[in-house]
């Protein structure tokens, strides 16, 4: 089976003045359709960068990003690229760069190249209902609390019915009930067949994920899948019963 999303040896540098700052170094990952993948790492480990690269909004310096068998970065013509990007939703803490719009109008505005305004508004409303944030649809981004912003960002990301939802650090700094609400929502979205790739500052937020990677020193890392030696779940971790 071809993975839905593949990152192959992806590297990226930023320029800080004249100094190049390596953010990612030969990062590779596979995510199957309908899977829930999680990447955890410290602050400024490069989580947002990897989320943006996976979403195709940032192109790596080196390496290849493939979505559904097609290269994301240079997917030929504009329309083709648009069609590909419509299948990936990216939810981040950054809001609309338009002042004064209601969030419902903002979400609708992101769909105007393929929908009439009325249809786009209707879709936006449905998406806000889906995430349980229909009540804040008429408010502007500035007036929303952190948790509400994340819900709205997720609504914006799923409004076109993507195959892959990428969520950048959705629960950081949120209270327990909001965190639970967002995690329940993400798992429900995944339950509906959408692959989810989520970043988190804390590993514990990724409980229940199908795949977990850690991001440290510019590389994605996990224990090697088939090590030399033996596979012995340790008692005391509970692994003996479930591993």
């Amino acid at each position, binding site marked *: 089976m071809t993975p839905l999303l593949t990152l192959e040896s992806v590297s990226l540098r930023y320029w800080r003045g004249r100094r190049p700052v390596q953010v990612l170094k030969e990062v590779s990952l596979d995510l199957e359709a309908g899977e829930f993948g999680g990447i955890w790492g410290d602050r400024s480990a490069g989580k947002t960068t990897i989320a943006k690269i996976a979403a195709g909004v940032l192109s790596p310096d080196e390496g290849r990003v493939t979505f559904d068998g097609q290269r994301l970065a240079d997917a030929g013509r504009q329309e083709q690229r648009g069609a590909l990007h419509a299948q990936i939703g990216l939810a981040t803490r950054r809001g609309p760069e338009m002042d004064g719009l209601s969030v419902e109008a903002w979400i609708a505005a992101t769909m105007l190249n393929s929908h009439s305004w009325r249809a786009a508004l209707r879709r936006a409303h449905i998406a806000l209902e889906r995430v349980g944030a229909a009540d804040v649809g008429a408010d502007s981004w500035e007036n929303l609390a952190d948790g509400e912003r994340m819900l709205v960002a997720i609504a914006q990301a799923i409004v076109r019915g993507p195959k892959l939802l990428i969520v950048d650090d959705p629960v950081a700094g949120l209270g327990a009930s909001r965190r*639970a*609400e967002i995690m329940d929502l993400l798992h429900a979205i995944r339950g509906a067949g959408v692959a989810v790739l989520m970043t988190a500052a804390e590993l514990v937020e990724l409980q229940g994920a199908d795949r977990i990677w850690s991001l440290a020193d510019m590389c994605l890392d996990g224990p090697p899948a088939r090590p030399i030696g033996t596979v012995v779940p340790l008692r005391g971790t509970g692994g003996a019963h479930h*591993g």
Partner: protein
Amino acid sequence: MSEATRYAVLGLVARRPTHGYALVEQIRRWPLDPALVPTGSSIYKALRWLSREALIEPLDATLDRETERLGRMTYGATAAGEARFEAWLRRPPTTYEDLCLRVGAARPEDLPTLIAFVASAERACLARLQGLRMPEVESVMARGASWGVVATVLLGRTEAAEVAGRSKVLRDLRRTLEALQAHRPPAVGAP
């Protein structure tokens, strides 16, 4: 005297010939749960047992000049002791403490084995975390769940936090061991 104590003592003696008192001092400093720290007497018992099994042997005893009595006995590992220790070290640990003990007793040439053990433990932790998805306790209570459910969720969340914490510790340990291994000069004549 537990098996762990025997192998800890055997490992220390195999690393460098030493006497009982130094062993007691050394083992006392290990970052173990106080309840798990072997007592002085169990360490001496382990020495006697290992000696009886011919896994260690007395090398010499220092002579106290004033009393003209033999002082502390220094022990070294026999060839059989070295082999037994080696076999134990390569046996997969069954508990976290067992793993820590191997890390403490291992030699540089054991790094690949240790890395495999730590990776295996790390994988088990991650698998457990992947199998857990606990709701927030507050939201379970707010929905009027029974106390039994609330308590189960509470425990589950505690376990998730513990498993996540341990995964991080193991990841960092594995990465450190991998870095150490990468910087090791290649062994001469090793298979």
